[in-house]
């Protein structure tokens, strides 16, 4: 099975824009693909996992370094 890795730069965007961008991008991906979202609004730490839970995607990892948040999602 081939899964693909993608990246989305949502830095400087304020919520809910990072969620909207994540949602729109995931629509174009296939189950099993991974999307790494990079953002700077700490609200994304709550909203992106919440959005993933209600849509059946999985947050694989989440990390914050120097105000930059990286969330990796596996498409469900």
């Amino acid at each position, binding site marked *: 099975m081939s899964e693909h890795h993608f990246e989305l730069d949502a830095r400087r965007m*304020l919520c809910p824009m990072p969620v909207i961008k994540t949602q729109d991008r995931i629509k174009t991906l296939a189950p099993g693909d991974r999307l790494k979202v990079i953002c700077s*609004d700490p609200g994304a730490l709550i909203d992106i996992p919440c959005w993933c839970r209600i849509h059946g995607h999985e947050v694989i990892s989440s990390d914050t370094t120097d105000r930059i948040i990286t969330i990796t999602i596996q498409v469900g």
Partner: protein
Amino acid sequence: MSQQQRKAVALISGGLDSMLAARVIKDQGIHVEGINFFTGFCVEGHTHAIRQKDRLKQKRNNALWVAEQVGIKLHIIDVIEEYKDIVLNPVHGYGQNLNPCLDCKIFMVNKAQAWAWMEENQFDFIITGEVIGQRPKSQRKETMPIIARESGAEERLLRPLCAKNLPPTLPEREGWVNRDDLFDFHGRNRKPQMALAEKLGFSEYAQPAGGCCFLTDKTYSSKLADLWQSRGERNYEFDDIMLLKVGRHIRPKPHYKLIISREEGENHYLSGYRKEFISLESISCKGPLALLDGVPRDGDIKQAASIVARYGQGRDLTEVLVEVRMKDGSVDELRVKPLSSDEILSSWYV
């Protein structure tokens, strides 16, 4: 033959009413999904994200949170561009401030409908948490049919919380939902909603009936009106309306204003705009970052520097060194005397 499961799209604002409406219909066996529109004016998150003192508070998006509580999917749609026309040219006018609530409702139901009837979605009807008499302008008995008609949703628009006060809609007449199990709420009294929330086991919800967007805010609306007046045209870009949410806005002259940060988080946010605006910051002592919006004329930058110095720790000194950074990155330093509080005229505050 088993009956086809009907599908409803629920407008989710993040408040209690839309949460109850979605849940009530879901409990009737309807497949419900939520839709939420991001206009750029939504109160959600931004100011929290920007202001340092609020960064520690919970910053959840209420619409997403509601969707999770109800157990439905939520689709968030960016309508920033299209929404401009609603703010700039509302057919039904404004509410108390620059809130075009009735046009906004019509617009949102219409957008929800366009999404719902799409080939890949195929929903049967739309639900909202509207309650007759709850809002003076947009939620009155007379406005309910206007929204249904002008949005194009007509009788596929169901308001579960006040349905019994309105003629039966298609989902009720067709028996997709049971009208007897809907409600007859009306007026500004929130007790029936709270009782229903309790009955359904919702112990937590966003503050009832709170304004869901900045346009209902008096100060915000006056900043927006000032922006239009100073530019000589009623228009805005996304960054304009975001910046109206940040900092102190001071307009010493009709052709320029200063956006002065009030704390570290805002400083950080405004610093992201240094390529789009002239920026000023006192460097001989700690002080805020300010953006200059407009085209300065002779003497304006010096005046701006004296104002900015007033809001830093050097406010009582005779001289403060202020760095002025142009959009191209070139930097100048100005020695200025901070203005006294009397010299900052109250009419300058936007």
